[in-house]
């Protein structure tokens, strides 16, 4: 019954300080955190399941909303865009959704992940639990929602533009890198928001701005001489994977690959080291 006898040794935070400089510290820290997350996998599972339940189970139409929502949104947007920008509506629908779905994942993972410690304040102050599971749960929820949305998207697209691109095979790889990018960034923004509550509002504004800096509503060629700016946005390169699979039908470029992989690695590096630095201090800021 239950887990066996546990031994836990907690070393003072000050003792850890200088060890940060050695790579061995990070190797053992990562190994430990993975083990810790594994031992809290049931909590993680319940956190994720509860969020999904709220979304899919407690509404009358449940999963259908994942299908209905895009259709409704599309009708509004596509009508507007096709009338104002004179775009071909069928094409535009496909393009829009291959960018919008990944964006919604990103926005949810970042904004919910950032607030996750504050939202679970009660638990954190009273139970010993690795803090990382809260942003992790949020990014997993966002990922599951994205998976459902992509499924819905793929189904809808069969009516608009039948057939499947082979580039779909690369989508899981692209999304995995995208997930790492978003999770790493969420660890960083979570720390900022927890320490400086003002950042929550700033973050929302930045997300809104970033939304318009991504090729979602418009295509790169439409912004003319500013198109090169889109290349500086790493999200452009993650979206390239879903747009390749659903819209362009061309393989992601080498630049896409490099920036996506590099962005994911850099984001995780930053996020994890920020997290390890403040891991035991968050509790004083809640």
């Amino acid at each position, binding site marked *: *019954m*239950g*887990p*066996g*006898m*546990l*031994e*836990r*040794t*907690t*070393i*003072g*935070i*000050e*003792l*850890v300080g200088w*060890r940060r400089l050695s790579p061995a510290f990070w190797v053992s*820290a990562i190994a*430990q955190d993975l*083990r*810790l997350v594994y*031992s*809290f996998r*049931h*909590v993680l*599972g*319940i956190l994720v399941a*509860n969020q999904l339940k709220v979304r899919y189970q407690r509404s009358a139409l449940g999963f259908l909303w994942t299908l209905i929502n895009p259709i409704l949104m599309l009708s509004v947007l596509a009508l507007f865009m096709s009338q104002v920008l004179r775009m071909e509506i069928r094409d535009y629908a496909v393009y829009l959704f291959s960018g919008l779905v990944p964006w919604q994942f990103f926005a949810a993972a970042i904004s919910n992940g950032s607030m996750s410690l504050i939202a679970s304040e*009660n*638990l*954190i*102050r*009273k*139970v*010993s*639990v690795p803090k990382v599971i809260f942003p992790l749960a949020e990014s997993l929820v966002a990922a599951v929602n994205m998976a459902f949305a992509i499924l819905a998207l793929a189904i809808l697209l069969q009516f608009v533009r039948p057939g499947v691109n082979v580039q779909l095979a690369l989508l899981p790889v692209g999304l995995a890198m995208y997930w790492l990018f978003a999770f790493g960034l969420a660890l960083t923004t979570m720390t900022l928001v927890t*320490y*400086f*509550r*003002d*950042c929550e509002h700033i973050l929302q504004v930045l997300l809104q701005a970033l939304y318009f800096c991504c090729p979602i509503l418009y295509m790169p060629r439409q912004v003319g001489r500013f198109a090169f700016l889109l290349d500086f946005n790493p999200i452009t390169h993650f979206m390239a994977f879903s747009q390749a699979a659903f819209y362009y039908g061309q393989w992601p470029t080498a630049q896409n690959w490099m920036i996506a992989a590099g962005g994911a690695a850099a984001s995780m590096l930053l996020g994890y080291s920020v997290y390890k630095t403040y891991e*035991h*201090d968050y*509790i*004083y*800021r809640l």
Partner: protein
Amino acid sequence: MSTTTFIDSNGAAIELDAVSLRFRRYGDSRPAIKQAVLNAIFSRSYAKTRDFWLFRDLNLRISHGQRVGIVGANGAGKSTLLKVISGIFYPTAGRVRVTGRIAPLIELSAGLNPELSGVENVYLNGAILGFSPAQMSAKMERILEFAGLEPFARTPLKYYSTGMLMRLAFAIATDVEPEILIIDEVFATGDAEFIQKASGRMHKLMDSSHIVVMVSHDLSLIRQFTSRVLWIDKGKIAADGKADDVCEQYLRSAQTPA
């Protein structure tokens, strides 16, 4: 940094070696960018005075089989000590070593989520204590029955009364057979009937736990349940010894203010 390893020995133990805890008080005002900027400009002198050391080189050893009570004035650091033992607060310096599965009843309602139903909370709490949903399903009926909450099993906790919450939390926490039991003012609420039921179960639980550490202002409760008592005063162990002796000492000091 924390290390968690499974060992197969049977000896539960709590060891605190030279534990110091610097408590950060960020005060009533929410930490804001303004303050960080001011700190940076005035090289951190702006808010430095708000940190204080709650524990300095605290040493404590609780070994297998001991039932320890902790007494002391409000704000002396009793609950914080429990939080250090259960791993909620990390020591600023020193080392905490705990062997055995801990059930931290630090405020009974700790792991309860008001948005979730009774049943969902049983799963969540069980998970926090390291039990899988399948293992908790096996305990579900017994927990709900003990708490007397079968009719409200599917009701979100936000509609529960305080007493109902307490009963549920108590029923979950005491059903998981922890090796180390940490209790912070458990008997604060609940009606007479439940307190009686609870105290019976508490006895049983304490008998089966390897180590019990309890904080209470109720000295008769402390005397009844524990054999060793720590008196914590301003973050220091003022006395440590037989329950009756230390309670006596503590009472005397309380009656004659220094």
